[in-house]
């Protein structure tokens, strides 16, 4: 990633804070003085205790939410509304259940004003890449969780996002399917090298996928520390977890993360 140092970062969050005010007037700080920089083509994972504000950072980058203070920049430009260069993979199922698979994948290009024929062609292409060509006419409820996630990936990747945001995308899948999806994600990512922010609570997932792991504090979230992960690519996720250096990374980061998880847990049990 050294060669990218001179370039403009793909994503920048500069001293960002985000406060919510509930209708009853109580305020809640989700992010405080948050700083993050993602270089073009870099894969960044964000880990932190549950409910610390990880997802909020992603919403700020999409433009669905605005920072209360500070600035969010994409490719050097301040975020102003939803940016067409952004793609988002959700934790829960966000496919349209009343559309079959191919219509779901075609949605993006059609929304963006592409011709129907062209949209159809690239949708078929993307379905082939995620191995679902035989399921074009199926509805989401007829597919397994892993297949639905693949459709989600195709639906997002078809727009060729330069910035890819993923909010615990695989947390609802079983362990084996998750490993398969990791491989799939890395393969798709390697083809185009989008800048990725991958939010997860699974530390091993973060280390296996990312170039850089951000550890957040218990809410209000701010960056506690950043760990560059210097494992060679292409990585084979199913095997990397047995390598000594992988285990060392996990142990070091976990030492750091554990305090925050404990703080968060203590607060939750006090509140209860």
């Amino acid at each position, binding site marked *: 990633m050294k060669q990218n140092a001179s370039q403009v970062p793909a994503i920048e969050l500069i001293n960002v804070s985000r406060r919510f005010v509930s209708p009853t007037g109580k305020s809640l700080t989700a992010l405080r003085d948050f700083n993050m920089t993602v270089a073009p083509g870099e894969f960044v994972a964000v880990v932190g205790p549950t409910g610390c504000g990880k997802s909020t950072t992603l919403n700020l980058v*999409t433009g*669905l939410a605005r920072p209360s203070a500070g600035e969010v920049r994409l490719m050097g430009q301040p975020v102003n509304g*939803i940016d*067409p260069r*952004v*793609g*988002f993979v*959700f934790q*829960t*199922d*966000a*496919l*349209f*259940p*009343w*559309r*079959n698979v191919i219509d779901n994948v075609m*949605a*993006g290009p059609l*929304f*963006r004003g592409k011709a129907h024929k062209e949209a159809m062609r690239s949708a078929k292409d993307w379905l082939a890449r995620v191995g679902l060509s035989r399921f074009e006419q199926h*509805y*989401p*409820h007829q597919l397994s969780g892993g297949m639905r996630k693949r459709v989600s990936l195709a*639906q*997002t990747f078809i*727009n060729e996002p330069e910035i890819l945001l993923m909010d615990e995308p695989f947390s609802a899948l079983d362990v084996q399917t998750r490993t398969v999806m990791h491989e799939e994600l890395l393969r798709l990512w390697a083809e185009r090298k989008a800048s990725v922010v991958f939010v997860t609570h699974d530390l091993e997932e973060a280390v296996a996928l990312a170039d850089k792991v951000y550890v957040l504090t218990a809410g209000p979230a701010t960056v506690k520390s950043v760990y560059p992960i210097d494992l060679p690519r292409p990585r084979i996720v199913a095997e990397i977890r047995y390598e000594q250096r992988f285990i060392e990374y996990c142990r070091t980061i976990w030492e750091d993360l554990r305090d925050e998880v404990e703080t968060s847990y203590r607060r939750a049990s006090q509140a209860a």
Partner: protein
Amino acid sequence: MTDAPLDSALPVFRPGTSDAEIEAAAIKVLQRRKHAVRFWQVAILVGILGLWELSSNRLWIDPFFYSSPSAIVARFYEWVTEGTAEGSLWYNLWVTMEEALIGFVAGSVTGVLVGIGLGRNQFLSDIFSVYIKAINSIPRVVLAPIFIMIMGLGLASKVALAFIMVFFVVFANAFQGVREADRNMIANARILGASNWEVTRTVVVPSAMSWIFASLHVSFGFAIIGAIVGEFVGARFGIGQLISIAKGTFDAAGMYAAIVLVMLVTLVAEFIMTMIENRLAKWRPQQHTDMQ
């Protein structure tokens, strides 16, 4: 394979029985159950009608008030062949259906549009919610005399009543359906590039559709109620008017015949609606295999 709801009814085979044999036995059990349901449905109907006829014949109940199935059929036959006191039966039926249908279509279209409009606009819905709640607490049938006073004895007053009966049910459901639309799905559509209008068209409306259809099922019945109540209060023709005349002449059989006629019409409408819904909702997981 098929999950027979009565698994205990399935025979247990020796190990080594072929799959085809087991399947055939399972299908047979399913079919037997289906026939049993149908048999009891018919048996109960025959039983009730038979008991009614018998008690009316034996004067256990007063046939003057309670009539009897045979008298009702006879009156119905007379209406069909000789016409009613107010012209042909079909004309009267058509008048009521016309009122109900126009009211139903206008009421549900307006209800859907207003429901989606207010559901998508928090500010407007905050303003209008109090008025809607207020108007909604008026029992709709009390409006019948007012409508008849303003719009006269003809079509318009009944259509207005059917409209108002249908509108609030459909509106409330469309509004709720819009509010229940999945936030992630909306966010997904917007990030994929959908404009506000496209979000409404491709996400909000389809997800509100099952709510809207649920309300359409009941609201055709409401449209008929509106039309008939309107006719009770004042009309020249229509099924409600027939019932009203029958009441005036103490013709119990005539009242029951009109009621049965309305029941049949509503059942047919309900059936058509279910067919349309099933066609539109082919994306939904099969939730009920009708055991009919």
